[in-house]
């Protein structure tokens, strides 16, 4: 009977997964411009949008610009989808972490359409977003994404997006 293989050391796993995420999100200038970060728990990502005065759309209320909210949702959907799409290749070593770190990124999915519902005005404080990949096919993907602030059960906005997936090179 063959011996069960030893599990990988946790720091190796973490380094690989974090490197993949950093390579994905760190390479997009608009993510840096808005100041969006991603928190990773296993393969689940949470987008974080720290509040800044120049994100305001309505100075009277004040409220976060609807365009910022839309961009935050779209970005969270795109990165979550890409991360899940890359996950297996990163885990099996088909994509080398060194290559990712060197900026050798695979092509990202392209947004086909994006529909956002504004549920509550965005308050001048941090916002969070999580996406659910409802379908990830060979060619098209459907993603639902939701953003909230103080209370997870009172979302500020939700969106539905369709993406065109890059062609796999195999």
């Amino acid at each position: 009977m063959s011996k069960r293989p030893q599990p990988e050391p946790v720091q190796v796993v973490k380094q690989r997964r974090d490197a993949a995420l950093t390579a994905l999100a760190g390479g997009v200038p608009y993510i840096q411009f808005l100041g969006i970060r991603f928190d990773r728990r296993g393969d689940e990502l949470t987008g974080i949008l720290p509040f800044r005065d120049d994100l305001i759309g309505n100075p009277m209320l004040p409220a976060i610009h609807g365009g910022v909210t839309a961009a935050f949702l779209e970005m969270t959907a795109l990165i979550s989808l890409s991360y899940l799409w890359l996950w297996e290749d990163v885990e099996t070593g088909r994509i080398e972490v060194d290559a990712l770190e060197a900026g050798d990124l695979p092509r990202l999915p392209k947004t086909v359409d994006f529909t956002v519902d504004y549920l509550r005005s965005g308050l001048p404080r941090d916002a969070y977003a999580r996406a659910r990949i409802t379908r990830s096919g060979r060619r098209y993907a459907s993603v639902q994404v939701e953003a909230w602030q103080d209370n997870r059960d009172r979302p500020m906005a939700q969106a539905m997006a369709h993406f065109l997936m890059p062609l796999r090179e195999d």
Partner: protein
Amino acid sequence: MEADKARIARQFIDSIPHSLTLGMAITELGDGFARIEMPYDARFVGDPQTGVIHGGAVSALMDTCGGAAVMSHPEAPVSTATIDLRIDYMRGATPGQTIVAEATCYHVTRAVAFIRATAMDDDRDRPVATASGAFTVERGT
């Protein structure tokens, strides 16, 4: 009076911090129509390999332009907010070119305003994106 409304609507847009951050400028406004331009900026890039502007920046432009069209409508609301916005992306905007959005507020009810918008780069015959949306109509009481 009309010029007054246009001035108020312009002031409204010019007072939006994030629209200023994105470098947006109104080039035409009035009667439920708005045209806003956003010059190319490397900070708004979504795909570093191609230099194409991220869809999110286009969304912000469309949203602002839709709101401006609502504010400039003859039944000018005191204020407005986006209820929903759907954007269809036809193609990536050509890197280096200014993106121009045009929005028309084609119908207003007591509480809701409806808009259509198009975003273009230098090639005006092939839109970069189109959008349709609903906005609230806040009437001062």
